[in-house]
């Protein structure tokens, strides 16, 4: 009897982990920011701990959970609950190696697949079946995964992380402009969708390793699309070139406040109606914003929170400047390249674009 291992791939588990990771990173980052702004610092004993110290310290502890969250929830998405515990353990190894982000991802994938293989192919006597998810799979996975992580992958993972961190620290000004542009550009290309999660996750990972420049790009660039679209609407009113239908204006009114909180998804319904033009304009604006922020050395210790975390950044003025520059670029481009329309006309209900669904079937 040949059992078949279920297909899970790598992408869905990583996306799952990001979903679980985000609230942790946001809460921890804000704790650090609030603590630091009120004069707190990280402390190691209860003696003389102030409230700001408590917030900063807790935020730091939360960031310490990051590798375990990545590894744990990747393994959970691959192997379901039996994968969770060994996944968390692999994350602890990643912390031990000083390779939080990369180590967490590799450890999670490793633990997940070991657990999945055991679940699928390991058969035990009936009486031991209850012990499988409880004891056998987690323990065997932790032993196998742990030994591989420490003795086989540990060295290379630490080396790569150290090299990557050194590389980013040593970027010169023009390289920073280029990388800042790329991170901003890709980070906003689908407004918080699956593509933009990749550079965003890398920024979060670097933050976990103490490099906060890319995180600044991520936070600022995410606000550019909604701000840019809003400003484009105002400019279009001023120059009497209507580019948005009534219904879209309503959406802009929703997208702007969402944008303040760094949620760029509000732009999606507006972008959908004129996808290519809008994406070109917003992504370019995000790139400009990222390039300025990164090149001028702005850093963000907080991964999320929108305009409210700008005061917590290392150079708030640079942050505001980058944000405004990106917003203006997006807005001006939108007004220039979007077609003039009759705003009173209801947008015609467009037929769906044809997609190839031939690969779909029931299983």
């Amino acid at each position, binding site marked *: 009897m040949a059992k078949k291992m279920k297909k899970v791939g790598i992408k869905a588990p990583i996306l799952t982990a990001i979903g679980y990771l*985000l609230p942790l990173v946001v809460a921890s980052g804000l704790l650090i920011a609030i603590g630091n702004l009120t004069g707190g610092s990280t402390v190691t004993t209860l003696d003389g701990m102030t409230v700001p110290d408590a917030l900063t310290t807790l935020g730091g502890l939360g960031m310490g959970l990051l590798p375990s969250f990545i590894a744990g929830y990747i393994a959970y998405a691959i192997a379901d609950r039996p994968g969770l515990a060994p996944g968390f353990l692999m994350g602890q190894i990643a912390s031990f190696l000083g390779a939080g982000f990369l180590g967490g991802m590799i450890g999670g994938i490793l633990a997940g697949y070991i657990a999945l293989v055991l679940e699928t192919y390991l058969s035990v006597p009936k009486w031991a079946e209850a012990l499988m998810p409880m004891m056998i799979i987690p323990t065997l996975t932790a032993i196998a995964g742990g030994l591989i992580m420490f003795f086989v992958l540990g060295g290379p993972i630490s080396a790569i992380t150290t090299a990557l961190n050194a590389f980013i620290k040593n970027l010169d000004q023009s390289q920073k402009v280029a990388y800042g542009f790329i991170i901003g550009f890709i980070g906003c290309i689908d407004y918080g969708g699956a593509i933009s999660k990749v550079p965003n996750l890398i920024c979060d990972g670097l933050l976990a390793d103490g490099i906060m420049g890319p995180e600044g790009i991520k936070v600022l660039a995410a606000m550019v699309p909604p701000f840019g679209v809003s400003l484009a609407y105002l400019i279009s009113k001023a120059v009497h070139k209507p580019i948005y239908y009534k219904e879209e204006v309503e959406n802009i009114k929703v997208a702007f406040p969402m944008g303040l909180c760094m949620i760029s998804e509000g732009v999606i319904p507006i972008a959908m109606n004129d996808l290519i033009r809008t994406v070109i304009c917003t992504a370019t604006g995000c790139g400009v914003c990222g390039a300025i922020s990164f090149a001028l050395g702005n850093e963000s210790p907080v991964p999320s929170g929108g305009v409210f975390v700008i005061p917590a950044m290392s150079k708030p003025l640079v942050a505001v400047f980058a944000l405004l520059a990106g917003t203006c670029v997006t807005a001006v481009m939108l007004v220039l390249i979007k077609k003039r329309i009759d705003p009173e006309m209801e947008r015609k209900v467009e037929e769906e674009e044809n*997609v190839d669904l031939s690969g779909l079937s029931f299983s």
Partner: protein
Amino acid sequence: MKIVGVCACCSGIAHTYMARKAIVDAANEAGDEIHMETQGTIGVEDELTSEQIEQADCILLCVDVHIEGTTRFKDKKVMKIPTDLAIKAPKQIIKKIHEELGKRA
């Protein structure tokens, strides 16, 4: 036709609910009965009941991530698509479901 399913995206705040709305609207337009559960950051909402699952002709999963409770759909016909496809082409997906189920009948 009775369709039930789950929507879940990566961050669980936007695409999940956009996909749900698109699919539900398209199915209603085609005259189908549909129940979609969402698994967002907030947790499970509009959880499917066991009767709904039992009576359903098929299961439609619009998911980018690992979801809870897939064992509920063990003996059902399941179609799995990414959320962006559900948002982009909901009518074609519903039509495709009709075609696929028609073929088997």
